[in-house]
């Protein structure tokens, strides 16, 4: 898949993984596994990028005697998901155009 396209898609995927409730690194990877395989280093980069874009916030909480980072989606993050949904509608119509059967010419 085109790298730029993939990067944008992965960002939205991660946002979607934390849109209903806060999540942590490994859980995000697990939740996304049926749809898209994400490596730890890729996830790290995405999380840092989303944090920089203020689409998520990070908090540290104690879990089982160790510290764990939880990621929380922001309003900007929700907006990005909405943007993606409308972009997708446009993408679907383009897809239909590209895969249209050739019509017989006169």
């Amino acid at each position, binding site marked *: 898949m085109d790298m730029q396209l993939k990067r944008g898609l992965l960002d939205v995927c991660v946002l979607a993984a934390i849109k209903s409730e806060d999540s942590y690194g*490994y859980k995000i990877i697990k939740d996304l596994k049926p749809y898209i395989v994400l490596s*730890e*280093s890729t996830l*790290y980069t995405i999380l840092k990028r989303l944090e920089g874009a203020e689409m998520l916030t990070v908090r540290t909480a104690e879990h089982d005697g160790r510290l*764990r980072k939880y990621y929380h989606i922001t309003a900007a993050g929700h907006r990005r998901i909405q943007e993606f949904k409308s972009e997708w509608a446009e993408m679907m119509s383009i897809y239909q155009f590209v895969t249209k059967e050739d019509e017989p010419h006169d």
Partner: protein
Amino acid sequence: MTKQEFLTALREALTGLPPSDVEERADFYAEMIDDRMEEGISEKEAVAAIGSVEEIVLQIVDEYPIAKLVKQRIQPKRRLSAWEIVLLALGSPIWLSLLIALFAILLSLYAVVWSVIVAFWSVFAALFGSGLGTLVGGVYLLCTGDIPAGLVLLAGALVCAGLSIFAFFGCKAATKGAARLTKGIVLAIKKACMRKGEVQ
């Protein structure tokens, strides 16, 4: 590999990065390994699932902006004592000018590569221009009735056209090669900055 071995190896491989960055990444991977182990995966498998240190380093080298890496590398890792500062200052006419000279030489070499590319393209432009010129001249001569001369010029135009096609593909390949060289140099600089180096 145990979790500690992995984290130590990772920290070592990332020596070129700002220390806070290294710690943040190490914590991230430590958390990942712990989460996997909590699910019952063995330590060895958890570490293996993360990927090798080399893979992680390669990905970072790819994405990390080169300016940040170079800046981090040339910063002194410890505070200089008074006499070290004096010595550096006294010797600066020598080491500073050597450093500038070295940099200038490397830059000129790189510039030479691109000058050659420009020369190639000039040859292409010359051939193309000559082709056009002889074509116009040939047509003009034919029109004025000077058939033999006109034909000669048209033949010349054809030759130029053919040569310029070759020249074009040659130039394109050379330019691609120079671009790839540039990319390779940038990557090499990044890698050199990240390698565990001598004490500054």
